[in-house]
């Protein structure tokens, strides 16, 4: 067979590699098994403070708008905008995830979600909220569908 060549520029494709959900699941599980619950929370809170530093500053300036804009952007990138519902009052922002794209992907691939996967939401948002002087609370969850609800409150 003749030589085959594939030549691609970044602009030829959309950046959406769902296999990374499997990589995240494996990494979280490894941290949990090696360093325990506290290790998972430490890793994710370190990550949140570092990576989400611009978001934290934006929340301090723009409040709930910054969180809404971030979530809309992320779920749009995941081609899952329909899974996200946001409800605002003067003092609260409630987020309802009808179905989690990451969990959907893992289940589709036959990968068992790590028991620490929950912390990719709980610890990260608690850290962002704490750093930007908001309250954060998990309200509901469902392991099978990935449906979830959480709330930010003004302090």
């Amino acid at each position, binding site marked *: 067979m003749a030589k085959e*060549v594939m030549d691609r520029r*970044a602009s*030829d*494709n959309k*950046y959406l590699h769902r296999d990374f959900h499997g990589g995240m699941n494996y990494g979280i599980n490894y941290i949990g098994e090696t360093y325990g619950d506290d*290790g998972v929370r*430490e890793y994710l809170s370190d990550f949140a403070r570092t990576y989400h530093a611009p978001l934290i500053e934006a929340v301090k300036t723009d409040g709930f708008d910054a969180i809404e804009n971030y979530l809309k952007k992320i779920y749009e990138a995941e081609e899952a905008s329909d899974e996200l519902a946001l409800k605002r009052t003067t003092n609260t922002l409630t987020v309802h995830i009808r179905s989690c794209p990451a969990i959907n992907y893992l289940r589709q691939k036959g990968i068992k979600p790590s028991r620490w996967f929950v912390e*990719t939401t709980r610890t990260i948002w608690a850290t962002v909220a704490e750093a930007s002087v908001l309250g954060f609370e998990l309200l509901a969850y469902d392991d099978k569908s*990935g449906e979830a609800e959480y709330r930010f409150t003004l302090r």
Partner: protein
Amino acid sequence: MRAMISCTEFIPAYSELFKFIDRKSGRQAVYDYWRSNFDPDRAPVNQHLNKSGIRGCWDYWSHTLNEEAADFTMTLDEEAGYFRIDMHHCPSKGRLLETKHIEPFDEYCFHCDLYRLSVEKHGLVYEYDFSRTDKAQCSLLIYDPLKYQPQKEEVL
């Protein structure tokens, strides 16, 4: 509670994970993590190699590099016995370099060397050039030593 770090934000989370393990347990623990993560028993590239030989490299990286929106040239010559990737701009390292408020793990790119665990299991040679990763560029050559003898400078 099931929710997520978006797959579009995995790369900084991955880099920070390496840094966390390094802080907690030292560099060898990072290498051990890579070895675990790239174990052929769980590596998709190994399944492709099992199924299609060196063409499995083409099949595997065609999927991943297109989904990652990489800027690359990939070449397969089964008759000559080689496969190569010339990464003109790696989307992962590129993102880390562009995200100015985080410092990438200093050996971030080296985890890609662990694909060799699967490749060498199939009697193929795995050569990687990491000399231009500061520009988000690299080259990879995989070949069958019974068919192909690369020039010394070919990978560079």
